[in-house]
């Protein structure tokens, strides 16, 4: 069972509201790709919206916000190492080897 931390667990009503928010963000993501006026800012907008969805699912649906901090720290190691790996792959093959 989930281990309760500082925050109480959300209720089923909260889960439905979160789902509505996630659905709305997904709709907004698709919409901005079709709006020509936003073409110059579409990439940062999409990345911010994806990050928001990521945080909402991890924090509320995976209960990382409420659970013991050890789980958050373990997951953060993976999350923080990913951009390092990302940069290493892109730098190695994109710049050094020039593939």
């Amino acid at each position, binding site marked *: *069972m*989930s*281990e309760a931390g500082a925050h109480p*667990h959300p209720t*089923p009503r909260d*889960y*439905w509201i*979160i*789902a509505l928010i*996630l*659905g709305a963000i*997904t709709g907004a*993501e*698709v919409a901005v*790709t079709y709006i020509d006026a936003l073409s110059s800012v*579409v*990439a940062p907008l*999409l*990345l911010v*919206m*994806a990050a928001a*969805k*990521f945080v909402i*699912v*991890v924090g509320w*649906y*995976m209960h990382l916000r409420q659970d*013991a901090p*050890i*789980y958050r720290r*373990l*997951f*953060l*190691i*993976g*999350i923080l*190492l*990913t*951009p390092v*790996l*990302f940069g290493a*792959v*892109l730098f190695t*093959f*994109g710049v050094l080897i020039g*593939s």
Partner: protein
Amino acid sequence: MADGATTTLEHAEHGGHHDVTRTRKIAMWVFLGSECLFFGTLISTFLLYRNRTLGGPTAHEIFDIPFTSVSSFILLMSSLTMVLAHHASDRRDWRQARIWLVATALLGMAFLSGQVFEFTEFVHEGLTVTTSPFGSSFYVLTSFHGAHVAVGVMLLLATAFMSFSGKLRTDTANEGMNVELVALYWHFVDIVWIVIFTVVYLLQV
């Protein structure tokens, strides 16, 4: 004296159960952390090769954003049914938990069907795994994600089946824990798709 010993034993068992639960959950989070690196590698490989189409179809030419958006929405809603299954299992309402587990598995299967349809369309339009580095990196990334969804569907159905047979209820060391671990895995598959949908689909069209 005997009562005291019993109380101590019960306390130790309770503590032991807590440790087992905590250890299994820690193991799952470590696994999910390592999976971030796995998918991070595949996504960076895709970004590296996304423009190398060698005369084959480009992302802009073949991606059907409205269709993939519906698939994404289906997977997103499966996270809702999953968390409702988890909530029901926490309350030991196994009937509700089963309903939501099976609903999640069905949504997962719908997502996989969409992926099979999408791949078939892409092959008909000339993008295969050997067409170009873009095709190879796209299929490897999305297929690995699809394989994770397929494993998740099997875990969901196995968990629902275990609840039918009463195993989730009788095994005190596992009370609700199996549902929680499956839920963590399923939500992870969903967040990986959130990244893939944005980086691989929306940013490339």
